């Protein structure tokens, strides 16, 4: 291996507690005003720092712009009082071959680790058979408690999902790391977009400005010019602006809690799994998506003269046979889109999830265990 353990990495014990907002430092339970309070171990609050390990070999003339954009975000976060969260860029300890890259990296706010390239046995075992320099990079990421690794040197055959599942660290390219940063800061209630950066943008106009749905906005504008009735125009406006924003916000919240869950798994926090937070937003997500399909159905009804009235609402549904039959008669191309097999498969899955959360229960993602062959029956377990 070219570069190995230039300096000692932090110990596993140090890693287990670093960067968590709530760190247990007492032996006894907390005692305030003479009362002892219960304390939950193996838990922590939200992670407020996103740590990104940068493989400096990825820094070149074309990629330095990404570093500049990330530094702008870091300046913005520092301007907010109190600072809601932090994005930290890290690089392995200086490698003399990459002096120019280090200069750029540190000038743009990057921090250099005190160690360069280490190999942790758990990473080596988890990756198995992967080239040494990749094992070293991922080991350095684990040792540095990095959430993300920016690298382009991914060996062929390495599956990113598999590595993420085993190490709870994601290796990504520059565009993805920026997207992950957006998710992280938006999760901390900081509306930020690299495509349209601005200071102190509130949520209300944020998604319409930063990630506008130009196709749906164009539909709304054309329908207005064509003299469509006001209630249809309102359906289109609300779909293009309000629902698009609500779905984008909910999607980002869910992705944020997936990030948090990944950090919790890396820290082996058994009791903090963010399942409640994910479940909470998931319930809302399914209802928003399903209601959005209803909204599209009414737009189709108006735009293609299907002539269903408000009182016919039971027959206006994405999978409703009457609705689809009339659509086939009057707008075959639209019916083809509704009856596309991939779309129907997705709608049925969405319907299952939405109907459950709307009528049956609370959608809480849960762990799944495969029962071993020698597992005693339920009765035997209860008697033990």
């Amino acid at each position: 291996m070219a570069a190995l353990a230039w300096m000692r990495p932090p110990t596993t014990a140090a890693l287990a507690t670093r960067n968590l907002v709530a760190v247990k430092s007492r032996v006894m339970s907390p005692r305030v005003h003479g009362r002892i309070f219960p304390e939950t171990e193996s838990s922590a609050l939200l992670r407020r720092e996103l740590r990104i390990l940068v493989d400096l070999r990825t820094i070149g003339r074309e990629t330095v712009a990404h570093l500049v954009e990330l530094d702008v975000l870091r300046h913005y976060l520092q301007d907010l009082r109190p600072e809601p969260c932090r994005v930290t860029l890290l690089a392995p300890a200086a490698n003399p071959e990459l002096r120019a890259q280090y200069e750029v990296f540190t000038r743009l706010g990057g921090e250099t680790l005190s160690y360069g390239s280490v190999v942790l046995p758990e990473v080596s075992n988890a990756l198995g058979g992967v080239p040494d320099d990749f094992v070293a990079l991922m080991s350095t990421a684990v040792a540095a408690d990095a959430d993300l690794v920016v690298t382009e040197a991914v060996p062929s055959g390495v599956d990113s999902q598999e590595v993420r599942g085993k190490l709870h660290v994601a290796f990504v390219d520059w565009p993805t790391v920026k997207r992950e940063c957006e998710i992280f800061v938006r999760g901390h209630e900081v509306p930020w977009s690299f495509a349209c950066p601005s200071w102190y943008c509130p949520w209300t106009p944020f998604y319409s400005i930063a990630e506008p749905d130009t196709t749906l906005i164009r539909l709304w504008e054309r329908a207005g010019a064509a003299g469509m009735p006001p209630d249809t125009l309102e359906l289109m406006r609300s779909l293009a602006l309000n629902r698009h924003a609500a779905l984008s916000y909910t999607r980002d919240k869910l992705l944020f809690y997936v990030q948090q869950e990944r950090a919790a798994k890396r820290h082996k926090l058994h009791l903090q799994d963010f399942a409640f937070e994910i479940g909470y937003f998931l319930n809302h997500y399914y209802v928003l998506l399903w209601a959005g399909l209803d909204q599209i159905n009414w737009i189709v009804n108006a735009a293609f003269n299907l002539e269903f009235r408000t009182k016919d609402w039971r027959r206006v549904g994405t999978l409703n046979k009457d609705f689809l039959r009339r659509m086939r008669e009057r707008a075959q191309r639209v019916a083809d889109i509704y009856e596309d097999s991939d779309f129907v498969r997705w709608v049925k899955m969405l319907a299952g999830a939405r109907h459950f959360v709307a009528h049956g229960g609370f959608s809480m993602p849960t762990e799944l265990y495969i029962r071993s062959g020698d597992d005693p029956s339920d009765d035997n377990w209860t008697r033990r």
Partner: protein
Amino acid sequence: MFPREWLDLFRPTFRHKARLARHQKIEARFIKIEIDGEEVLITPSMNIEWDFNNFFGFAHKIADVAIERLTA
């Protein structure tokens, strides 16, 4: 160390955890839903962007046909 009634309170949890420890845990989290009368498991955390893209992909296809009709 703890009163017996406390231990009795936690006994079902301990028993449940001991039982789970004997099983193989799947990393992803699931929810159970019903599709066409059959129970299926989905992994919602992995489907977040897929759901979003399916919804807006569909909406855009419909919008494109509608725009064409409105401009004709």
